[in-house]
C-alpha cells in the first residue's frame, strides 16, 4: 500500500458521515475504509504502544527463565514469555494495516520515541515476582483488554480476541505460583507477600491516570476504541483481586481497602501519582536497562535479518533466471 492511497480527502462529508454511521451502529472500521486522520493516528499510537508493551514485557519474566526452580515452571514460563512475543507480533500486524511498518515501529521503540506500559520498568527481583506479574499485571492487562475485543477497529479487535484467549493461562499460572508459595515454607510465603507488596500499586497504575486527568480518553470513547473509563476498569480490577488475595492468604498493601456497601465496590487508598509520572517519564528503576536490551537484540539481529533477506533475493533472482 503506498502512502498516496492513504491520504484520502479528510473533508469529504459523505465519507465522514459513513464512518460515523458505522461507529454508531457498533459496526467495525476495516483497514481500507476512510477514517479521520486523528482516528488513524490515535490507533497507530495505541496499538503500537500496546505491541511495545508486550515486547518489553517479555524482559522481566525472561529474566527468570534460566533460574526457574522446577522444570515444569521453566516450561510454563518459557511458553508464557513466548506468547508475549506472539502478542507483540499480532499487535504490530494490526498497526501495520494502518500504514506503519514493523521496522518503523521497532526504530521508534529503540530510539526511545515510543511509549510502552511503565509497569515493565519495575524489576523482577524474586521468583515470586513471576507469580505477582501473572496474577496482578496480567490480571490488570486482561481487564483492560477484554473490552478492546469490541474496539471499533476490526484488526485491533481481532488481535485482542486471540490475545485474550491466550492470556487466560497467564493469569492462572501466576495465581498458582503465588498459591504454591503462600502454602509453602515460611521463606516462600514471605517471598510471595513481598512480591505482592511491590506489584500491587504499579498494577493499579496500569489503568492510566484518573478520568479527570486523562487527555485522550474522551475521544477514544467516542470512537469506541476505548469502551470503559480508566477509573471504572481500575475499580473492576480491585473488586476482582480482593477476594482472590483472600484465597491466596496474602495481604494487599492498601490499609484503606474496605467494602463499601452503598457503592457495591471496594474503596481504595490514594495512588501515588507522582511515582507514576516519574516512571512514565523514564525515571523508573529499569527504563534504561529495558531499552538497552531491546536495542541490543535489534542491533545484534540485524546481520541475521539482512542475511535472510539477501538469500531470498538471490533465490528469487535464480528462479526467475531459470524460468526465462
Amino acid at each position, binding site marked *: 500500500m503506498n502512502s498516496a492511497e492513504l491520504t484520502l480527502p479528510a473533508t469529504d462529508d459523505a465519507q465522514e458521515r459513513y464512518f460515523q454511521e458505522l461507529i454508531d451502529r457498533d459496526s467495525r472500521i*476495516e483497514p481500507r475504509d476512510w477514517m479521520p486522520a486523528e482516528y488513524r493516528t490515535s490507533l497507530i499510537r495505541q496499538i503500537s504502544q500496546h505491541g511495545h508493551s508486550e515486547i518489553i514485557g517479555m524482559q522481566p519474566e525472561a529474566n527468570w527463565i534460566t533460574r526457574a526452580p522446577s522444570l515444569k515452571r521453566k516450561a510454563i514460563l518459557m511458553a508464557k514469555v*513466548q506468547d508475549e512475543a506472539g502478542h507483540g507480533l499480532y499487535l504490530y500486524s494490526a498497526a501495520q494495516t494502518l*500504514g506503519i511498518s514493523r*521496522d518503523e515501529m521497532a526504530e521508534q521503540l529503540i530510539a526511545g520515541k515510543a511509549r510502552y506500559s511503565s509497569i515493565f520498568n519495575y524489576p523482577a527481583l524474586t521468583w515470586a515476582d513471576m507469580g505477582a506479574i501473572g496474577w496482578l499485571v496480567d490480571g490488570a492487562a486482561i481487564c483492560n483488554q477484554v473490552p478492546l475485543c469490541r474496539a471499533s477497529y476490526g484488526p485491533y479487535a481481532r488481535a485482542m480476541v*486471540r490475545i485474550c484467549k491466550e492470556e487466560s493461562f497467564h493469569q492462572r499460572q501466576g495465581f498458582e505460583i503465588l498459591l504454591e508459595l503462600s502454602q509453602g515454607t515460611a521463606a516462600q510465603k514471605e517471598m510471595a507477600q513481598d512480591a505482592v507488596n511491590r506489584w500491587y500499586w504499579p498494577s493499579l497504575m496500569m489503568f492510566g491516570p484518573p478520568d479527570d486527568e486523562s487527555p485522550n480518553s474522551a475521544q477514544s470513547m467516542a470512537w469506541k476504541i476505548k469502551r470503559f473509563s480508566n477509573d471504572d476498569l481500575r475499580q473492576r480490577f480491585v473488586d476482582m483481586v480482593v477476594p482472590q488475595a483472600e484465597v491466596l492468604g496474602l495481604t494487599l498493601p492498601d490499609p484503606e481497602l474496605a467494602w463499601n456497601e452503598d457503592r457495591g465496590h471496594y474503596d481504595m487508598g490514594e495512588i501515588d501519582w507522582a511515582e507514576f509520572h516519574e516512571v512514565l517519564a523514564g525515571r523508573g528503576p529499569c527504563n534504561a536497562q529495558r531499552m538497552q536490551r531491546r536495542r541490543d537484540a535489534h542491533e545484534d539481529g540485524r546481520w541475521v535479518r539482512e542475511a*535472510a533477506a539477501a538469500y531470498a533475493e538471490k533465490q528469487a533472482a535464480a528462479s526467475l533466471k531459470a524460468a526465462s
Partner: protein
Amino acid sequence: MTTPGERDSADTWPLWEVFVRPSRGLSHVHVGSLHAPDETMAVRNARDLYTRRNEGVSVWVVRAADITTSDPDAKGAFFESPSGKNYRHASYYTKSEGVKHL
C-alpha cells in the same frame, strides 16, 4: 490493489498473510499475519506462531503484496447488485412450506 498493511519496501522482511485449516473438512481461515524473508520461512514461522496450541492441521501463507482486493471506494457499486435478488435464497419461496423434503 494489495492487502492493507503491505508496505514491502519499508521492511527488511515482507509481510505474509496466514491461513489455517483447523481440522480436516474445514476451510483454511485467515488467522493473521507475520514477517518472513521468503515463503519457506513464512510457512515455518506460521506453524510456530499460529499452531502452537494445536489450532491447525494445515497452513497456507501468501505474500500480502500478492493479494488482490476489491476497491474499497467502489464498494457501493461493487456490492450493490446482490441486493434485490431475493430469488437467490430458499427463504424467498414460501408456497412450498409444509411440504416435506423440500
